[in-house]
């Protein structure tokens, strides 16, 4: 169920005027669209749920900054966008440390390299479409929609290619394939 601007705004105004019931239902209504918003942008990252919670908390603690003469959804997504960019900023700050940690804590560099070679060998046995989709999404880090656009296929087709390819690779690793 999705509620529209007028409905959400009416609930927000009631909530600001002290209607606890309207407030409860508002927060309930906000969670699904926010979840969709973050999932779409984080591409399956499980931090999407954290960001939904953070945004709902900000909606609560910063509710006085909502201007009743302006659209509610614009306000809401400004908060969501801020939380998302904050998440990316934090991520970038942490990457340096994580990489360093990885360097220090990986005495088995050789094993890691062999694993990479294994993956390449597994990939080489896939049909070109599946191989390309997996390489782009799982190794190079592109989103499904970017891959789909580049290969001129639909996003669901790209998703299916990734899924089938991974399944086939898994089967080969477990010795079932071919």
């Amino acid at each position, binding site marked *: 169920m999705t509620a529209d601007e007028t409905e959400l705004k009416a609930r927000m105004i009631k909530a600001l005027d002290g209607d606890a019931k309207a407030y409860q239902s508002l927060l309930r209504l906000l969670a699904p669209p926010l979840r969709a918003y973050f999932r779409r942008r984080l591409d399956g990252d499980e931090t999407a749920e954290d960001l939904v919670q953070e945004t709902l908390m900000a909606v609560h603690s*910063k509710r006085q900054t909502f201007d009743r003469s302006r659209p509610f959804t614009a306000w809401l997504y*400004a*908060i969501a966008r801020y939380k998302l960019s904050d998440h990316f900023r934090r991520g970038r700050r942490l990457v340096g440390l994580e990489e360093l940690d990885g360097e220090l804590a990986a005495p088995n560099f050789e094993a890691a390299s062999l694993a990479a070679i294994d993956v390449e060998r597994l990939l080489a046995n896939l049909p070109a479409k599946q191989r390309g989709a997996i390489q782009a999404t799982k190794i190079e880090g592109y989103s499904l929609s970017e891959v789909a656009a580049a290969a001129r296929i639909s996003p669901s087709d790209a998703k299916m290619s990734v899924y089938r390819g991974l399944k086939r690779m898994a089967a080969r690793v477990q010795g079932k394939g071919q």
Partner: protein
Amino acid sequence: MARRLAAGVVTGAAISALLLIVVVGARPNLGQVLNSASFWSKVAFTLTTAAVSVFVAARLGRPGARISLLWILPVPFLIYLPVGIWELAHTDASQWMPLLLGHGWKQCTWLVLFLSLPVYGGLWWSFRRFAPTHIEAAGAVAGLSASAVAALVYCIHCPTDTAVFALVWYTLAFALASLAGAIFGRRTLHW
């Protein structure tokens, strides 16, 4: 939101005024300048800068505020600028330096910055409940607001009423305070 901002600014300004009176005192001829146009035009410059920047700060405290609003900040300066040019045009070039340096140029910028600290504190207290999405801009405008309010308070003491003086030294204080506010804001205004 407006009430919280007003509370922060007014409390800060009151502390600034108190500090000013305790540390350097009011100008001895304050009673006489109350009917001087140059005194009031200086007050108008600081007051309008303060009003415009507090207004923009209030807007930047809301999520999704447009950064394009910043263009109104220099408007008081641009309105006051012709007064300074007029002063220069009506003064012999040999007297331009005294016009610029006034009676207290050495302490003016620093005193305004010092007096802006309590106001910045009050603004910062208000901003903790706000949700700025342009952190640096919000910090800079908070710094500008603080220094403009401080300059307004400083008019109680400042012995120089020329526009050239205020346009240069007050504006220098505004610029430094905006810069400091942006740097401080980036570290402390996250939510």
